[in-house]
């Protein structure tokens, strides 16, 4: 049986990719920095590691990306020279305060610090807050570290950010929503990635429509998830509802479905869900 040489880990790799190729590196990561202990939790590992690159993980752990890349490669038997650049983090803190800071109304505030200290995942709360933000408004996040991966996630939803550190475990991050999908970032370092195209509300061809307006919780969730399960990859599901299905959103996010909601008036909400190709494998 021939043994293939290990592939060197790059700063741009997702942590999930690192772990999937080299499972023993979970322990190595924890040894390198206790911050990464969350990766021992299978649920956290599944959710978090998909969102974070090695460079971003280094920034979260307060390490130099090159240092982390070097240590990980060392653990799989590859030596990276000290001077080799290993990638840059998206340092998002800015000295220049964008004009919307202080003037944009704050629609929501999430204090993720207690959740993190208790080992809970604040992602759902943050995304729920983001959904409540009206165009031209902002929401405030309090965090124990600079949430670098979140910048990309929210950037794809049309948010720009401004971060400031008040203390060792005390970060305040403002996310401004201008109403579009992708927005110009406040600083070159905080440029969001190109936005995913918005879902096409008008497309009649692939859309399956269901009405759950008369169903009481949790039957709407059951009906919607059953309909999605039966839907072919790439298909879309239009749901008529009486309210935003707040308990459904985290499930859709976890399963990798894209979704948008629009409010048509009191007691009338439409949710458009796209079954992406990867979603059915989750």
């Amino acid at each position: 049986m021939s043994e293939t040489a290990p592939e060197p880990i790059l700063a741009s790799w997702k942590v999930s990719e690192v772990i999937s190729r080299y499972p023993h590196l979970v322990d190595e990561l924890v040894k390198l920095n206790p911050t990464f202990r969350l990766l021992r939790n299978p649920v956290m590992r599944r959710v978090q590691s998909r969102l974070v690159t090695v460079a971003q993980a280094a920034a979260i752990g307060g390490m130099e990306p090159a240092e982390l890349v070097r240590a990980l490669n060392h653990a799989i038997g590859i030596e990276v020279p000290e001077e080799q650049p290993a990638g840059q983090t998206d340092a998002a803190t800015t000295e220049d305060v964008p004009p919307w800071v202080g003037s944009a109304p704050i629609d929501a505030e999430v204090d993720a610090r207690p959740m993190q200290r208790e080992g809970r995942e604040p992602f759902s709360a943050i995304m729920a807050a983001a959904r409540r933000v009206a165009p031209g408004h902002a929401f405030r996040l309090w965090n124990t570290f600079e949430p670098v991966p979140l910048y990309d996630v929210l950037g794809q939803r049309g948010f720009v950010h401004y971060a400031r550190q008040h203390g060792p475990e005390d970060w305040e991050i403002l996310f401004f929503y201008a109403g579009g999908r992708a927005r110009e970032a406040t600083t070159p370092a905080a440029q969001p990635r190109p936005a995913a195209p918005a879902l096409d509300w008008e497309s009649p061809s692939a859309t399956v429509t269901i009405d759950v307006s008369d169903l009481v919780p949790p039957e709407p969730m059951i009906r919607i998830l059953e309909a999605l399960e039966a839907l072919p990859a790439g298909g879309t599901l239009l749901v008529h509802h009486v309210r935003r299905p707040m308990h459904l959103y985290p499930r859709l996010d976890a399963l990798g479905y894209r979704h948008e909601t629009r409010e048509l008036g009191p007691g009338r909400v439409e949710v458009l869900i796209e079954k992406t190709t990867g979603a059915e494998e989750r």
Partner: protein
Amino acid sequence: MRPGGGISSAHAPDLDLPARFMVLGMVDLLAVAVLAPFAVPLFAGSFSDLRLLAFVHLNTLGVVAAVILGATYQLVPVVLQTPLASVRVGRLSFWAFLVGLSFLLPGLLTLRHWAMGTGATLLVVAFLLYIGVVGTTLRRAQRWDVVAWHLAVALVGLAGGIFAGLLLAGSKGNGFLGAMTYPLLGAHVTFLLAAWVPVLLAGVAYRLVGMFTLAEDALWRPAAWAGLVLMTGGAWLLIAAFLLRTDPVVRLVAALAIAAGQILFAAQLVHLYRARRRRGFDVHIPFALVAAGGGTAAALLLVAGMALGLRPSSALWVAVVWLTLGGLAETAIQGFFYKIATFLVWLHRYAPLAGRQRVPRLEEMYYRRLAVAGWLLWTAGLALSLAVAPLGNAALGRIAGMVLAAGLACFLINVGRIAGHGLSNVTVWFRRTPTPRVGSGATEDGVVS
């Protein structure tokens, strides 16, 4: 809440916090069921009977307070969309509550002052921790609506009630309250049974009933505000009237305000159920309606007692207290448990499976016929028990207690069945692993390097 805005449980604390209070509440409800055939006959005697006093506190603290504390730790962050100020302090409040209750109830039964004092002190600590956590969470909330105001005002009522209770417990030993004992007892009971429990239940019901019947937009907000002002204003006026020993007319006016508030609450519930989008029968509805009826009947009896100028020893007050405790609070607890606890168990146990495999509906997670039978028996037991005091008939009390116990048994069997669905998650609820600190430069000990 804006149109179309659902409420998310993203801010809810870990389920172990409400769950431990709920488990305690259900264990105490089991004790109530076992003791009811022996305790209800005591309604025919003196209300200062130590056994009756212990039974009443088993209901107020062991069942009603335990369930309310657990439920509000879960609901307040959801209703306010604000994380709980401190889950750790919440957990601490549970242990103070549990130990305090374990001292107070035997202390009351055996008149051991040291046990009563220790228990009351620990319970006060527990309630103060609870008030601190929920009060801070309320203060951080960005959007206040009529439900949030109900919660806040009820919290103030609770604070008054525990302060009065502490003074009464202290006075049991040396009698320092003297002639103020009865006025303060009246204030203590009014704080808890008029300014706290009904106000809190009304606020919670407005949100939960609207949510589960898809009738959120149908809430009569002016009526909800008016009900809050009347219930709270009446309760505080009555407390002031007790403490200041004012003219009986003031007490009558206060009782009328409380009754008007309760009638508005009952009317609001009926309106919400009539406006519900799904017309089918749900077992929580009869429980909720009986609860609203019990609260209204208690308030009307209060008016009657005040109008007739009845003495503190009158049997009517036993009926008022029991209607509020059993008729309003414990009936509402059973009804909302079928909805809320079942939904939470479903959410944790079956939501991840929904769409992939068949998952049960809420009604399939308990025995529906048993739930209806439980409601019938409980309601019949309440009606019978109300007749015990005025008739002075202990034998009737024994029968009433047995019927109440049968009703509770039906409910508790269903509680066990619902819990069984979530059993695989119970270990997760109660498992607390050391939490890693996530943050820039945090070390193993949480010290920033």
